[in-house]
């Protein structure tokens, strides 16, 4: 009996110790990655980094201004393309598709698409848009990013609409409002803050995507604000630079990694804080 208690206590202590060690190792590795990125990245970031175009290897004072602008354009275009579509699909799932077979299929596809390999989405957009049109383009890159955002927006919309009490819907309908009007003036408004957070999080996720852009928007060392042309992005530029043999390019790549990481983290933190503020205001 006593022996058994000792054994149980020992096993408990051992597991707790291992769990603590696992947590320590995991957190330490992740902290290591972030500090490396910060230290190597900050030294590459200066005024030139934000204002100059990429320079050929060997030349100093090159920057990634075009890639920064390119990433912003691509992400914004993808957001505009996917958000209305995603919200409509989410409304369908939450309002008209409760319990239906078709809705169950749409839900399943959205969940699978959320984890679909982003590079395959790139291949698909290459075959569907780039090859038929005959050239790489910002539109194709934005479309690939939009496909990645779509399922997230859809499922977030559905989940947030599900949180809106039916009594609110019924109250509006009882006043004689048509269903669509009730949706836009009551249900969607109530779900808005949660939906926005979900959308912002998915925006920050696709802003850091590389794989779907490799063969859609490609890359460009020039200013490119025309979506009909190949468009540079921070992530693809980072990939090319890091894989190159040049030291200055490696340094710029670390700078790009730092900038992307910080922007994504800042964006994520801000949208969470904002959601918390909205929730507090309401309660």
């Amino acid at each position, binding site marked *: 009996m006593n022996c058994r208690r000792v054994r149980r206590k020992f096993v408990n202590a051992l597991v707790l110790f291992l769990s603590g060690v696992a947590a320590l190792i995991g957190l330490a590795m992740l902290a290591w990655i972030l500090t490396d990125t910060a230290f190597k990245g900050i030294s590459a970031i200066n005024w030139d980094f934000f204002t100059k175009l990429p320079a050929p290897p060997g030349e100093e004072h090159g920057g990634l201004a075009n890639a920064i602008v390119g990433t912003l354009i691509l992400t914004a275009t993808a957001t505009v393309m996917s958000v209305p579509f995603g919200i409509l699909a989410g409304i369908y799932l939450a309002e008209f598709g409760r319990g239906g077979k078709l809705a169950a299929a749409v839900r399943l596809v959205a969940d699978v698409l959320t984890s679909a390999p982003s590079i395959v989405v790139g291949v698909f957009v290459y075959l569907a848009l780039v090859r038929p049109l005959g050239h790489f383009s910002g539109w194709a890159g934005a479309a690939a990013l939009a496909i990645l955002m779509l399922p997230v927006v859809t499922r977030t919309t559905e989940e947030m609409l599900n949180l809106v009490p039916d009594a609110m819907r019924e109250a509006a309908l009882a006043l004689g409002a048509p*269903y669509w009007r009730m949706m836009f003036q009551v249900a969607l408004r109530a779900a808005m803050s949660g939906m926005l957070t979900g959308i912002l999080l998915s925006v920050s996720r696709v802003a850091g995507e590389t794989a779907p852009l*490799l063969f859609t928007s490609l890359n460009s060392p020039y200013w490119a604000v025309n979506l009909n042309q190949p468009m540079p992005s921070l992530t693809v530029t980072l990939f090319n630079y890091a894989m190159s043999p040049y030291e200055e390019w490696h340094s710029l790549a670390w700078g790009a990694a730092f900038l992307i990481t910080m922007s994504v983290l800042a964006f994520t933190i801000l949208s969470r804080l904002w959601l918390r503020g909205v929730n507090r205001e309401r309660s």
Partner: protein
Amino acid sequence: MPQDEHNGRAGVEGVNAAPSAPGVGRSAGDAIFRFLTTGAGVGLLLLIAAMAAVLWQQSALSRAKFGWGFLAHAVWNPVTENFGALGAMYGTAATTAIALLVAVPISLGIGLFLAELAPQWLRVPAGTAIELLAAVPSIVYGMWGLFVLAPIMGDVVQPWIQERFGDFFLFSGPPIGIGILSAGLVLALMILPFISSVIRDVFLMTPSALKESAYGMGATTWEVARDIMIPYGRKGIIGAITLGLGRALGETMAVTFVIGNAHELNFSLFALGNSIASTLANEFTEADGDVYLSALIELGLVLFLMTFVILSVAQIWLRRMGKREGR
């Protein structure tokens, strides 16, 4: 969703079924609204169908030339236009397996630590930090792997392992740092925050009455975790691991930097290799022959079907399980 009825959902469902339900002819606006939203939902189905169809149709050349043998041989020779997917499939499977073997136990440890063991003041900040790390783009992990992890693996870790277990086939070959093992480790680091934050959430959902009654019976923390928290959250834990698996299978950037981009099939963990995703990332824009491009597209098709089947089966199974358990 049968549980809806218990949440006071029956009301609207009843409204929907009534003859004067919205979108059934009472108002033109509602009809349009219903048509548009349903159209968007069906659009998602069409999108995934279009992906499958385009990949299938555009890989016709490769499928006709290599048949099922494409999946069974490991030659990848653009010059003679002879292609097989086995090498890339092995690389994908091996890196994913390493990633899950490393990440899942550590994630369970982190989840348990954050939910049950850590001092109160540490729980929220550490939990938030882990969630934020899940948002760091995978390319950052890949680049870190190439410039920081690979040199350490090549100079310190791999020689050390070879000194001790040099004859073992898994550790043969020159210790160059990059390769299957390093790619698997980077992948593990990438999916670690994601899996741990979901597992933490799952652990936190265990009702405290259940935990406290176990503690009250004299159970140790580990026994509570093993007999209460893990069984209670089984569905969520398996879901988290499946999502991690899906991410690892299709991840491109975390792998491409460090796997070495070599096409021979070599079972040593130190060997250079290729995953399906890294092959596509490296070669797709350079493919100059029709057969070459078609073979790459078929690789994409293989990856698409792999993830699609695994994720669908997991989702359907999770939903069934949820229904049976009444959750």
